[in-house]
């Protein structure tokens, strides 16, 4: 409990309980297996991309190109036929490699060239989006159905999306308990001290980008498995969502403070809010407005809460 409070997750858990209660009231059979599976497969991409942002933010950097990167990977999957590269699994592997390459580019720009990540990833995001538009100028194209089938499959009665999220959290937990995790937090909370303590600051940040983008790659494949078509705009909204989830999850944008669990809770809050808005029968024209309002309210709540605990 004290660990949770220390991580600043309590207020976000509170929010999660509220939105869960609302959702359970509004969505029929919310606790049934079918809607659970449905919800999990809808939330999985958001969770993965928010986790990605969280690990990068923990190292005191930021990535505003995640959304555009998702679009680029989606368009890659929609453009390259699976038969040309040796089957859908090979194609998914290539998509992950592409994600790692994008992460490596961002990581290099931030660590080797020393550019401010906020604006540098904004710039690379424009490049990713431009490349995605080049591949898929109009939404369309088809993605190998096998990818969709794999995603909606179950292994030992556990839905694949849930497995992916569990695997991602497991990786996170393992990293967190080992040297890499401690180094990321050390670099994020005080880069100068970390450097003096002999931690390779640039290398740690670079690895944070790589791990983050691996998750982005998984998230992009998950999205593509659901839509089965290419769209250069499909990822756009994830940039705001990931940054908002990180803040809602109590992870400081100044780096070094917070846990992946916070990002998970933040992603769930935002995902469930979208669900609530959908199931509450709110007219579609109001949905964008409410989503924005909820994000602002959640941010305000978190900021005030953090301030209160900081004073106490």
């Amino acid at each position, binding site marked *: 409990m004290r660990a949770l409070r220390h991580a600043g997750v309590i207020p976000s858990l509170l929010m999660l309980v509220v939105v869960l209660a609302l959702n359970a009231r509004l969505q029929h059979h919310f606790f049934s297996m079918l809607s659970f599976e449905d919800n999990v497969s809808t939330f999985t991409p958001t969770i993965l991309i928010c986790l990605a942002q969280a690990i990068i933010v923990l190292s005191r950097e930021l990535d505003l190109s995640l959304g555009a990167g998702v679009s680029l990977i989606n368009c890659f999957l929609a453009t390259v036929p699976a038969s040309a590269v040796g089957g859908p699994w090979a194609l998914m592997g290539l998509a992950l490699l592409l994600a790692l390459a994008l992460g490596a580019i961002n990581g290099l720009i931030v660590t080797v060239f020393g550019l401010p990540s906020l604006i540098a990833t904004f*710039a690379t995001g424009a490049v990713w989006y431009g490349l995605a*538009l080049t591949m898929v100028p109009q939404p369309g194209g088809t993605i190998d159905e096998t990818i969709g089938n794999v995603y909606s499959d179950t292994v030992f009665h556990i839905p694949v999306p849930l497995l992916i999220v569990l695997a991602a959290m497991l990786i996170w937990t393992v990293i967190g308990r080992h040297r890499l995790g401690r180094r990321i937090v050390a670099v994020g909370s005080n880069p100068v001290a970390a450097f003096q303590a002999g931690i390779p600051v640039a290398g740690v940040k670079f690895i944070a980008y790589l791990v983050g983008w691996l998750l982005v790659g998984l998230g992009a494949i998950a999205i593509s498995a659901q839509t089965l078509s290419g769209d250069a705009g499909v990822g756009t909204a994830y940039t705001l969502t990931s940054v908002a989830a990180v803040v809602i999850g109590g992870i400081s944008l100044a780096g070094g403070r917070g846990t992946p669990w916070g990002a998970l809770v933040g992603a769930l809050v935002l995902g469930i809010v979208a669900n609530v808005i959908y199931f509450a029968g709110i007219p579609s024209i109001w949905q964008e407005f409410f989503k924005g309002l909820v994000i602002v309210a959640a*941010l305000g709540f978190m900021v005030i809460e953090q301030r209160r605990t900081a004073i106490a």
Partner: protein
Amino acid sequence: MIGSSWGRPALLLALTIALLVVGQLVLPGFIGLGQIANQLKIAAFLGLFGLCQTVVIAAGGQGLDLSVGAIATLGGILGAALMAGSNAMTIVGAVAAVGAGLGVGLLNGMGVAVLGVPPLVMTLALSSVVDGGLIVGVSLAHPADAASPGLVAIAGRSLYGVPSVALIWAGIAAIAIWLLSRSAWGRQLCRTGANPVTARLSGTHTVRVRVMAYMLSGGVAALGGFLLTGYVGQAFLGLGNAYVLTSIVVAAIGGVTLAGGKAPYGGVACAAILMTVLVSLLTAINMGENGRQIIFGLTLLVFLMIDRRLGAQR
């Protein structure tokens, strides 16, 4: 050279001229008087949105305004709704648009300076509220969306060959350069951005300065959107979207550093002209939105790297 206050604008203008010459060689007629007037018109809008970013980035604390697009759309739609196509009501529309922009800017500023929300998050979140609110407003009220003939004349026509919107921009730019580099407020702004602690200790009301910076950004963005309505002929959802990225690009190229404390609007204005010429050259050789995005991103990266090099040398 590039870092000094005159070197940068000079370099950017030299690059602009080089691009114009290349354009003329590739496509004879690229440097026509009409062409140049047209480009000045487009540069004027980019320059106005660049001013928004200049002010908030200079205010420091990772300052950034990602709501300029939404605020511009708000200014355009609200202004068009109020003037309803009549010349007499144009001024009312303009005042309401700028007022609404100042209001959103005030909220941004309060969130950033008073509550301490990171500017990126605050302005992005608020822009989704404004965009969402506009969808509701437009769907429910079906407001008039056409610009009045007077506004079309102001934003689209020319005065003795000089586009009037470029004259408006020149006036605003002159005021902005004075305000940011000569006035007491400008000095307070840069002091706040460079080091908020020493600024506060030396008597600057840093919270008020930051709130005012975001208000100024909102007001200018809304005015930009209002004028844009006149240039395009009507207001629509998503009117200002394209300016979110481009405004940051021109600010960075113009010499505003993300660390804050520097507000060289002369450089930003030259950067707006340079990027406009670049885009028109790319459009003239039939490069689509995809190519333009890529070139914008790469140009921004190159300038960031040059700045980084020069910063390291000093």
